[in-house]
């Protein structure tokens, strides 16, 4: 009798636990789910994003959309960047992901390849949606196997921010779009005094040494995804970027690693120039103690900059693909781009909508970022999103920490480690 009851309890416990389906992974969602909503029924879509600063703009977009489509309601969800991808992973594994969400290029290929994103190509073709209003580089970045999986939302490019006051104090002419690498070096030397540095060779790929690789006419990878940092065009660029640290015109590597110069040294007027992205323009403009302006990245062999942009995507397992597609179409429309541009935080991916963003900060020559879009190289889109990047960063972090020299071997090691991970 004792054993019977104990066994019954065990059975009950396990029965209850198996009902929870706590660890059983779901099968991959089918590529084309059927829409379970009928006309006239209210549909609720969840929309995930990671930038709380853009929540007000998003809410404006949502209310504009809900006015046009009263039977569709959108619930925005802001997940902080650190947790966004983990949460998305878990949600997909659990079969309950967001209907529409933000996607970025490093993670895009993985998600598209694993059937997590809804293939938008058939929808684009059947509704004759015009994709030519977006920059081709962005559309290509969000295409997988020639099918579009994301509607570009915004883009950002990189340029050279500089502190006008420090330039005036040293009597150096402001950077122009004709500046070369030699001009940058010379100016950095003149701007380096007892208390300030001329340039900050901040540690990072973008903004950072990639921008200089592009401006040297080089590339980070080949079209079929092999990392080519060991080639002279790329390696010389990284060496040039690091050389400011060597000749003292930039703070040393460990200091640059300990804090982000964009948050400390540059706003505090300790550094005269640094390469940064368009998303930082707003914060720099608000610095009361310095006048910051921006110029294109000095030309090595060609004008160079890097471009990245976010896209809105639909989860392939969504129960309301038609409603989600309506929302996505709206988010990619001219009206939506106007709303985004007027909030001044990001440059809309819709061609021609940048003027509102450019005029948002009159004290800065923001047109530089928009011009850069015509020659900026997009984020390298390879399959294994972040691991190859981590391997490269590990090697160059050693260089910045002073544990290894910035030489051909470092470039070769970085390329080899990255290619090993990519299986090339």
């Amino acid at each position: 009798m004792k054993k019977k009851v104990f066994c019954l309890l065990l059975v009950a416990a396990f029965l209850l636990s198996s009902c929870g389906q706590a660890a059983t992974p779901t099968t991959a969602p089918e590529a084309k789910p059927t829409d379970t909503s009928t006309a006239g029924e209210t549909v609720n879509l969840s929309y995930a994003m990671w930038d709380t600063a853009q929540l007000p703009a998003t809410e404006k977009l949502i209310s504009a959309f809900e006015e046009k489509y009263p039977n569709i309601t959108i619930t925005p969800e802001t997940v902080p960047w650190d947790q966004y991808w983990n949460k998305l992973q878990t949600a997909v594994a659990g079969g309950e992901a967001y209907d529409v969400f933000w996607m970025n290029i490093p993670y895009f290929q993985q998600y598209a390849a694993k059937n997590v994103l809804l293939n938008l190509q058939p929808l684009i073709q059947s509704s004759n949606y015009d994709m030519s209003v977006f920059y081709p580089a962005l559309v290509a970045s969000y295409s997988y196997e020639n099918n579009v999986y994301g509607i570009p939302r915004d883009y950002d490019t990189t340029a050279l921010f500089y502190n006008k006051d420090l330039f005036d104090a040293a009597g150096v002419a402001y950077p122009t779009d004709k500046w070369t690498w030699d001009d940058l070096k010379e100016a950095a030397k003149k701007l380096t005094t007892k208390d300030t540095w001329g340039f900050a060779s901040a540690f990072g790929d973008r903004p950072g040494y990639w921008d200089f690789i592009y401006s040297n006419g080089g590339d980070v990878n080949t079209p079929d995804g092999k990392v080519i940092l060991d080639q002279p065009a790329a390696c010389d660029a990284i060496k040039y970027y690091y050389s400011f640290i060597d000749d003292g015109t930039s703070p040393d590597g460990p200091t640059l690693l300990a804090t982000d110069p964009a948050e400390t040294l540059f706003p505090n007027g300790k550094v005269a120039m640094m390469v940064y992205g368009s998303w930082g323009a707003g914060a720099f403009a608000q610095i009361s103690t310095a006048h910051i302006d921006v110029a294109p990245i000095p030309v090595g062999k060609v004008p160079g900059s890097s471009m990245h942009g976010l896209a809105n995507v639909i989860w392939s397992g969504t129960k309301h693909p038609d409603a989600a597609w309506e929302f996505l179409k709206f988010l990619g429309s001219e009206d939506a781009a106007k709303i985004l541009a007027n909030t001044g935080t990001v440059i809309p991916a819709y061609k021609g909508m940048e003027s509102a963003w450019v005029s948002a900060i009159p004290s800065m020559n923001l047109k530089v970022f928009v011009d850069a879009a015509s020659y900026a190289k997009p984020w390298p889109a390879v399959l294994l999103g972040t691991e190859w990047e981590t391997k490269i960063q590990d090697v160059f972090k050693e260089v910045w920490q002073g544990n290894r020299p910035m030489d051909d071997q470092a470039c070769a090691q970085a390329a080899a480690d990255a290619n090993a991970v990519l299986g090339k």
Partner: protein
Amino acid sequence: MPFLPKSKMARQEALWGYALASPLLIGCAVFFYLGMVASFILGFTQWDVLTPPTWYGLGNYFYLFKDHVFRMALWNTTRYALLQVPLSLTIALALALALNQNIRFRNLYRLIYFLPALTMPVAISFVWKWIYAPGYGILNQLLSSLGLPNVRWLDDPHVAMYSIIIMGVWMSIGYAMIIFIAGLQNIPRIYYEAAIVDGANDWQKLSHITVPLLTPTILFNLITSVISSFQMFDFIYVMTSGGPSNSTRTVVYSLWEEGFRFFRMGRATAMGWILFMIILFLTIFQLRTQKRWVYYE
């Protein structure tokens, strides 16, 4: 094991017992034991979280035994534990002895030493990152003012792990100290009184009465310290990301990176089980050998 007794009243009582304990039992079964079973099985698969797991047999384990980065992680974790545990227990014991005396502000001191144990490791990491910073960090400023060269606390591969160990010791002495104080207060005073009658000095009282009668507490602190030191993660995640040159890479950091950064959950869970086996072995070892040095009254 208490099953149902024969007498009716006792049986009713027992049933009530089971009924009231069942939520916890079921919760444990679902969220703990089932999770353990699932993770054990996942260690034999490859799983990128977005698609279903695929069977991989012992592939993950073979990979890890051959992987020099994982071996480095194991060695770093062991190095961390080997230094942090004895240091923190010795300092904690010394503090406990000191703070068991009747001195002024005793409770305030106890609070101050215990506070790090209550603080979130991430918050601790941010503050120590600033303390260790090159140039403007407090430690380097102190060294500069004394005319000594700066130390690359977190950037020098030979120094970084010791910087982490310092933080680990600082954080854990409070908890061990409190346990030691409780253990000290459990020692009956008559032993000390008898020793004084016999003419024992302070050192003899410490080594012949205090420490022997404290050995159960020491064993407890030893086991819990070893278990938690092998799980060092937070400081590494915030401050060094396993660097420089993988000198601070611990097993749990590698586990996090493989599973949550690189989408390789199968390999990550295999790492977790290897760590579990190591900690289990060490704990059993400590429990089995306790007869040689632990005195129970």
